[in-house]
């Protein structure tokens, strides 16, 4: 698959000089979108960029962000920068910007009136460092969804829950029917993310921000967060028999009815679509776990390393404009299953769950997510803690909370 894409890119780069596009500039774009739906979405971006007379060279790196980011960063710091690269916007590229390795896009942004069109505003804020804009947000992905298998609940003879508490109450019946109540894969980011979702849903936005933005360690050790740990304790008990690693395997358990529910971001929706399931009929979704419908404005963004070649710098500007173009936004996000970053585009083709997301977005119930608030270092420590907490049933919620407060206390 990758070989084919590379071969196509190579072939294209050979034939291009003869195609008579004199001003064409090749721009290598690296990203980690390699699953079926993701690749289709990237193809939309490439098509739009090629239409401007330039040429998109696809630099897909397989193996998710954890594998791809070190490669991208070492290429930029090692003096072999690509034309543009994907990161999750937030703090992943912060140090690269501070070291002066990334291109300032403020001129392009002012020309395109980004501050007016990009919605919600926080997206652009996380691209802004010292008043300058360094990245182009392309989509909104939110973590706070609970995916439910209608079939599993029918089999267990309980109604499909409307919120988290009802799911917890239904767990014994599900287990009796041989169904895993909650699927949580073994990858560390899944348990850590599920905890964050629980905190946002149970504690609400203010609690979430007090812990992750203000980094109030005393509060993190207090009774409000103890409630969240109690819920996480329920979650790990329900997830005990999951026994899979990858998130999409866990999603697949929900799709096939082996598991009743999963806390996962809206990217899980792509899996349901590929499996031919219909939102509302085969599966249900509860934003904010049904308790606190909010959307976190995490997502993907493109960053542009500082290049010496003037032609390429110009092409970077063109690409930045193309990415935010309304038409590109619609085409890309429909395939990706994410929400567009512009409020002025029309998404008629969106399904039930996406519409729920758009509604919340329109109401302005948004909040920042941990990618934006915490450094990668703190994120990793959190992942270590929660992967242990979810795997080791003998670790008490109190101990975990104490360690959590320590991490928050030393967070930056």
């Amino acid at each position, binding site marked *: 698959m990758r070989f084919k894409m590379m071969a196509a890119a190579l072939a294209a780069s050979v034939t291009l000089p003869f195609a008579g596009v004199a001003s064409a500039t090749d721009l290598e774009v690296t990203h980690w979108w390699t699953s079926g739906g993701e690749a289709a979405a990237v193809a939309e971006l490439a098509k739009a960029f090629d239409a401007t007379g330039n040429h998109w060279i696809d630099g897909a790196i397989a193996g998710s962000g954890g594998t791809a980011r*070190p490669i991208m960063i070492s290429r930029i710091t090692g003096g072999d920068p690509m034309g543009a690269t994907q990161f999750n916007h937030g703090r992943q590229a912060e*140090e690269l910007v501070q070291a002066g390795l990334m291109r300032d896009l403020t001129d392009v942004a002012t020309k395109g009136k980004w501050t007016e069109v990009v919605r919600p505003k926080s997206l652009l804020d996380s691209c802004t460092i010292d008043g300058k804009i360094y990245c182009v947000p392309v989509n909104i992905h939110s973590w706070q969804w609970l995916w439910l298998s209608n079939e599993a609940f029918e089999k267990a003879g309980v109604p499909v829950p409307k919120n988290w508490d009802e799911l917890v109450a239904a767990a014994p019946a599900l287990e009796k029917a041989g169904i895993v109540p909650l699927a949580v894969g073994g990858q560390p980011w899944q348990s850590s993310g599920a905890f964050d979702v629980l905190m946002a849903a149970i504690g609400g936005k203010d609690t979430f921000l007090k812990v992750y933005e203000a980094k109030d360690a005393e509060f993190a050790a207090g009774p409000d967060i103890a409630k969240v740990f109690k819920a996480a304790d329920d979650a790990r008990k329900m997830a005990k028999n999951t026994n899979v690693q990858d998130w999409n395997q866990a999603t697949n358990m929900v799709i096939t009815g082996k598991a009743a529910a999963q806390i996962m971001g809206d990217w899980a929706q792509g899996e349901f679509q590929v499996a031919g399931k219909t939102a509302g009929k085969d599966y249900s979704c509860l934003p904010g776990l049904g308790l606190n419908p909010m959307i976190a404005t995490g997502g993907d963004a493109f960053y542009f390393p500082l290049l010496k070649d003037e032609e390429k710098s110009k092409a970077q500007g063109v690409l930045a404009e193309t990415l935010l173009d309304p038409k590109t936004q619609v085409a890309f996000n429909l395939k990706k299953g994410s929400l567009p970053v512009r409020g002025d585009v029309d998404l008629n083709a969106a399904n039930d769950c996406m519409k729920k997301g758009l509604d919340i977005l329109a109401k302005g119930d948004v909040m920042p997510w941990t990618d934006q608030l915490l*450094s*990668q*270092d703190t994120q*990793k*420590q959190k992942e270590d803690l929660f992967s242990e907490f979810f795997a080791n049933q003998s670790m008490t919620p109190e101990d975990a909370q104490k360690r959590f407060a320590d991490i928050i206390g030393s967070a930056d």
Partner: protein
Amino acid sequence: MSVSMKSERPSRLFRNLNAKIASVPMILTALVVFVGGTAWTVLYSFTNSRLLPRLNFVGLDQYYRLWAAPRWLVSIENLLIYGVLSLIFSLVIGFLLAAMLDRKIRFEDTFRTIFLYPFALSFIVTGLVWQWLLNPEFGIQGVIRGLGWESFNFDPLYNSSIVIYGVLIAALWQGTGLVMCLMLAGLRGIDEDIWKAARVDGIPTWRTYVSIIIPMMRPVFITTLVIIASGIVKVYDLVVAQTSGGPGIASEVPAKYVYDYMFFAQNLGQGFAASTMMLLTVVIVIVPWAYLEFGRRGRT
């Protein structure tokens, strides 16, 4: 004139000049890459470098944090268990296999090939194969339950307290073949006359092995020990392929901590501190041994 030149004793430095010139690149590599790189790493482990190395010294902070991190402590404990057991078992099993093959059995070549074959696989492949074999639904447990023994329980990779033994099994399967070959070479190097003498004296076979053959094979054992030990300290790929450190953090190892903190967490200082600790451990083990081994030889 030329005669008088020749009678002068050539300087030690210029003896075997060709050989010395030929080894210059390797000497430079060793100095710049190994020694230089190590010194650089140790130096930066005292800084608060994040994504990019910066000379902003924070003293021993990174080390305090390292030794307070539960994941690092679990990693060290795992390495100890894994290291000690894998050292003992691969030596014992390797030697036993070699001794059996050395008893002039039939199809020796076939057996040797079978035992050595796993070594031709990378740790990644080994890890994946054993991940499947130890999977409770499809692997050994599934097969035996399918045969009718319903209560049979064998799922080390999904049990935090024994997961490291699941990793150990895979490592032994992969590594003992090599140990066996080294041992076999050592056994073949023993003079046939020694066996004859032992037999004439009526010494039982096992006694011959323990008291005569094994002491004679000391150099082979030391070579093997170094090869196994270096493999133990740097174990990484096997764990990544087999368990990714899970369940939870139960099968983490130090090398994985270093990699994760340097690249995923973008915290070079922490990763460097961890790798310095790994180096220190190796130094503590190697230096006294090397001193005994080579220091003694120098004197005799």
